[in-house]
């Protein structure tokens, strides 16, 4: 029995038992459904073994949406608990687990896969490539992320969730203060997902540098591709820091080392530094692709080219450099003194300059345009004002002396939600709506889409603006309750209402997907938005080889050139196309990683060693495998093109 005790939840409650039942039922339902409809073969052939960047993108997307709801439920629980003073809906331990998992799920298992989803789907299309540089590695990235997310999510019902905050500061996150396995989940699951992300970073840098269509010089890349390139460069520099920090944290927790402990020469401040050396660039990893999406959307629906292309690129390059020079602003209050704080205060505020350039460039893209307010455009226009407020409060936080008062308060919480929600979430929803027809061959309903956008925007403002005030009135973040005497009640009730409005907005999006899947017309052509870049030059949905003929490009708006300037995109005739073959190894290897992670979390050493051997076996298998891919014949291409409504080219 003793062996099994470690898997028990240290602090159970009816909600947790209910989730166990819900998870169990869902798993049974999925298995039964797949069996009943005889879909196992289909799932395995078409999805689990696919190396197609579009399918991988769609799987990332589905996972991100699922995680958005997981994180959203966490958020609703937190706001409900705080809605009134002295509430007893949640106790301290549950509240702590929930805000911790909320942060991790939202940043690492929602926002990251969401941006990677869109990068996967769009970048190869935008540069006229057949796939990414390393398709199988791409599948491995996805499955590592996916299994890491699953691993992290079972913590709620097996062994207990992490409860030391998404920042997981030591010594709080050490064994002494967090004895149950929750923080092991943090260290291991994020590690596995992070490996996947690092591979994505390498993969996309190579893809963008080496696989662009003829004629597409760097300065003729669409802005979203530029943002993807820079993001992936940041990933490659930032994620190894996280890898190392997590490895050290894991060793502290599992093997008794003293990297971050407060005795025997350990240093808790080292964790904080390593975490934010990764953590600050991470927020730019999230925001830059969003900036890329807004650039595409705003230019498309202002019916104009992007204003200041060169300064857009330059500002992203500067942001990527500066993002590594500001990490100390997350702990101005750690006692490093006026000199160090002054340096980091100035670098932090300086980042606002390139960010400001981008805002002004978008505003001037509207200038003399012909603005069509579609759903993606509506998100973009709601993004600008809300993000501006989030951004200027960032500058306020960057004034280090004043930050002594904002730090650790709801003011900070307001800041980062007001940059991340309009910055990342709105952008992802805009991108989702914008590229949806390219993915699935029909459009999402505009009316429902706009309702959702407005609800989400209003909800965001109502939920987060009050936090500026309660923060300045002394409400610290991460408190599971507060007394009536503090006077925070009113502001928190407002936040709760805002969270409710947000939730309705998200439910509408799900409804829109359902509604449009059922009722939307499939007759939309390749370019329903009258857009400008290459991805709109091929069919919707996109055939597996992307372009029957590799396009030739002479500006960042290749399709627009074709439509307006008589540029010829597709020259020559069909040639046999070489494609990468499917593989089950990424899936299997990641599943073994899941087992390995689980074994590590619970210190099941034999299982850990066996699964580690399994991982190496997969690597060895790959090294000796002869795989030359396969070819799509000219005849097949002709058939597909004819079926898709006429040849492109």
């Amino acid at each position, binding site marked *: 029995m003793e062996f099994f005790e470690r898997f028990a939840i240290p602090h159970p409650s009816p909600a947790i038992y209910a989730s166990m039942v819900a998870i169990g039922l869902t798993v049974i339902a999925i298995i039964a459904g797949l069996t009943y409809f005889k879909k196992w073969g289909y799932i395995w052939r078409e999805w689990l073994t696919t190396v197609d960047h579009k399918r991988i993108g769609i799987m990332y997307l589905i996972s991100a949406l699922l995680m958005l709801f997981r994180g959203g439920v966490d958020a609703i629980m937190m706001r409900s608990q705080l809605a009134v003073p002295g509430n007893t809906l949640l106790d301290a331990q549950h509240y702590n687990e929930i805000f911790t998992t909320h942060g991790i799920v939202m940043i690492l298992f929602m926002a990251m896969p969401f941006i990677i989803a869109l990068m996967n789907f769009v970048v190869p299309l935008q540069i006229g490539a057949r796939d990414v540089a390393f398709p199988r590695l791409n599948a491995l990235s996805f499955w590592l992320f996916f299994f890491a997310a699953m691993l992290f999510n079972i913590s709620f019902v097996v062994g207990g969730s992490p409860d030391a905050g998404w920042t997981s500061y030591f010594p709080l996150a050490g064994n002494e*203060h967090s004895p149950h396995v929750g923080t092991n989940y943090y260290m291991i699951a994020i590690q596995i997902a992070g490996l996947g992300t690092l591979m994505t970073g390498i993969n996309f840098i190579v893809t963008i540098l080496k696989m662009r269509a003829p004629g597409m010089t760097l300065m003729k890349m669409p802005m979203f591709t530029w943002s993807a390139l820079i993001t992936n460069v940041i990933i490659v520099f930032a994620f190894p820091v996280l890898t190392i920090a997590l490895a050290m944290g894991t060793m502290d927790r599992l093997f008794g080392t003293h990297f971050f402990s407060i005795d025997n020469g350990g240093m808790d401040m080292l964790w904080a530094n390593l975490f934010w050396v990764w953590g600050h660039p991470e927020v730019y990893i999230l925001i830059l692709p969003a900036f890329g999406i807004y650039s595409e959307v705003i230019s498309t629906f202002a019916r104009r080219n992007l204003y200041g292309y060169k300064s857009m690129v330059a500002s992203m390059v500067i942001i990527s450099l500066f993002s590594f020079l500001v990490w100390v602003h997350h702990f101005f209050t750690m006692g490093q003194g006026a000199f160090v704080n002054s340096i980091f205060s100035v670098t932090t505020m300086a980042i606002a300059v390139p960010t400001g350039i981008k805002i002004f460039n978008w505003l001037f893209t509207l200038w003399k345009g012909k603005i069509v307010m579609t759903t993606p455009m509506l998100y973009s226009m709601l993004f600008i004002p809300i993000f501006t407020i989030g951004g200027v409060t960032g500058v306020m936080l960057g004034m280090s*002396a004043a930050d002594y008062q904002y730090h650790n308060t709801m003011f900070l919480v307001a800041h980062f939600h007001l940059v991340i929600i309009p910055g990342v979430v709105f952008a992802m929803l805009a991108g989702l709506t914008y590229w949806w027809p390219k993915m699935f061959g029909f459009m999402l309903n505009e009316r429902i889409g706009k309702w959702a956008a407005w609800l989400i925007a209003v909800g965001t403002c109502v939920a987060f603006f009050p936090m500026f*005030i309660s923060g300045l009135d002394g409400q610290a973040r991460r408190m599971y309750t507060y007394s009536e005497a503090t006077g925070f009640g009113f502001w928190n009730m407002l936040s709760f209402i805002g969270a409710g409005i947000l939730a309705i907005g998200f439910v509408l999006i799900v409804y829109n997907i359902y509604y449009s899947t059922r009722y939307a017309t499939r007759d939309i052509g390749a370019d329903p938005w009258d857009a400008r870049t290459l991805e709109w030059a091929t069919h919707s949905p996109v055939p597996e080889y992307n372009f029957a003929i590799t396009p030739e490009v002479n500006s960042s708006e290749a399709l627009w050139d074709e439509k307006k300037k008589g540029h010829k995109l597709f020259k020559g005739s069909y040639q046999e196309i070489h494609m990468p073959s499917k593989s089950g190894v990424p899936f299997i290897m990641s599943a073994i990683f899941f087992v390995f992670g689980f074994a590590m979390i619970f210190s099941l050493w034999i299982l850990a060693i066996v699964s580690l051997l399994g991982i190496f076996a997969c690597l060895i298998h790959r090294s000796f495998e002869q795989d030359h891919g396969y070819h799509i014949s000219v005849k097949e291409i002709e058939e597909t093109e004819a079926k898709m409504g006429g040849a492109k080219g």
Partner: protein
Amino acid sequence: MSFLFFTIITVLTGCGNLLVLDPKGPQAQTQADVIMISIWTMLFVVIVVFALLAYMLIKYRASKQSDDYEPPHIEGSKVMESIFVGIPVIIIIFLSIVSVKSNYAVESTPEGYEDQEPLVIYASSSNWKWHFSYPEQDIETVNYLYIPTDRALEFKLYSHGPITSFWVPQLGGQKYAMADMVTTLHLAADVPGEFFGRNANFSGKGFAHNTFNVNAVPPAEFEEWVDEVKETASPITEDRFQELLEPGHLGQLTFTGTHLEFSPAPEHNHGGSQSHDKHDGHENHDHHEKHEDHEEEESSDHHHH
């Protein structure tokens, strides 16, 4: 949205009773000033962006234009882009000057208080309480502070457990208390009063209730309080102190003597701020033999300035 933002600004400026904007000491005053300067500056930025956005959206809607209007291709312009860069740069330079000046202000003895030696108080946290040691007065309290007005205060912060953050919003911003070094927070109170203080940095289960009270009283009254404590309180012993360190919540407690005598602060810190000062730094080194059992490491692991 802009409506909401303006409401916030009105609330901020209109009702002065938000703790952070209702300072009762010079450091909190400096910080409140910096906050207001940055709010007004940023308000200017927000207004410019909102106005431009509104203008573009109203003027260039497709519905306002003829069907055959074809938007021009505009590459961008050196002049415009220099303005986008130039004005923010000027704003950032201005704010940087304010920021650097205020950094040095809050990191030193408050201006106008240099005439007296600052009162040194050690504030150390343990799960989930605060221990306040007054070496000069040789007394110790738990979860409440008495401080004299009009005298600079030098808080020496450290922790017996997780990282915490000592914060009395009306006297000044917070600073971390950590187990392996001592940080210094300079504060002072201008007026008598009762202020709310708390640990602002999440530290586990009892975090929400990790608060304390600050009573600022005129210097004479402070002396009276010290005398009273000396007469009525019992001495703190090593055993008693170990009991206090146990995780949990305690009410307010008062002792004579300080725990620093048998369990000194980790003053041999890792670089950083000015915590190696004349009085306590050396005093505490004398006690090191009693402190746990890793004296040999002191010299190798901790660089001494």
